[in-house]
């Protein structure tokens, strides 16, 4: 608002510092509220994702013949979809385990170290137990997803990922 004491240039240049500060704060508040809406939408997406995951069905897939790989040996395979690399590890004469090869930290490919008997991620030194895929050390926040195997005669068949409830 113009007052009688204001110089003439005020009329031409009507932006006041205090008002400008006030408006920019209001705009920042609006931006923060919209960011809050974004976070809420993100949480709704998590709910939707958890519902969709309920409906995923894992196909049974032949992986290898028992005895095909030596004790301490590894075979790569793709499960449940092409491009989803997994590791089949023969840990004993008649013991096999399989895990997703994707590190739960930043998705680097993990490998099996027979010498240390653990799965290792070379990117950030994340180590996983070969027994159950749990994190032994390093930054990974979660265990490696485990592929559940079924033995049919001499054939090893992947039937599902471990977090999938039993049918």
């Amino acid at each position, binding site marked *: 608002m113009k007052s009688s004491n204001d110089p003439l240039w005020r009329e031409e240049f009507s932006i006041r510092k*205090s*008002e400008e*500060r*006030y408006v920019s*704060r*209001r705009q*920042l*508040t*609006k931006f*923060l*509220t919209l*960011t*809050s*809406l974004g*976070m*809420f939408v*993100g*949480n*709704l997406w*998590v*709910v939707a*994702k*958890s519902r969709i*995951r*309920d409906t995923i069905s894992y196909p049974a897939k032949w992986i290898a013949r028992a005895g095909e790989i030596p004790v301490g040996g590894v075979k790569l395979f793709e499960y449940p979809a092409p491009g989803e690399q997994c590791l089949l590890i023969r840990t004993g004469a008649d013991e096999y385990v399989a895990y997703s090869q994707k590190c*739960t930290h930043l998705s680097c490919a993990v490998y099996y170290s027979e010498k240390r008997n653990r799965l290792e991620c070379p990117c950030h030194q994340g180590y996983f137990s070969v027994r159950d895929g749990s994190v032994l050390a390093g930054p990974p*926040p*979660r*265990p490696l997803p485990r592929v559940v195997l079924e033995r049919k005669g001499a054939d090893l068949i992947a039937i599902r990922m*471990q*977090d999938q409830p039993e049918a």
Partner: protein
Amino acid sequence: MENPQRSRSVTAVDGAMALIIILLITQVWLLSATLNALLAGHRDAAIPGAIASGLLFAACLTLYRFVVRLERPK
């Protein structure tokens, strides 16, 4: 010289903004925690997380409306 009424409004806006920032940090933490739980196979946390996030958003919206009302001409 600043109008004292306006100065009080700016202080109120600052307070509301500080509260919104705290709520927003909580929401960021909530989203990362529920996403982490989902990826770990614990899907039970998703719905309570979304409800809590919705309540925090409602609180942010209320504070924003308070800020808008403050600057409305009387």
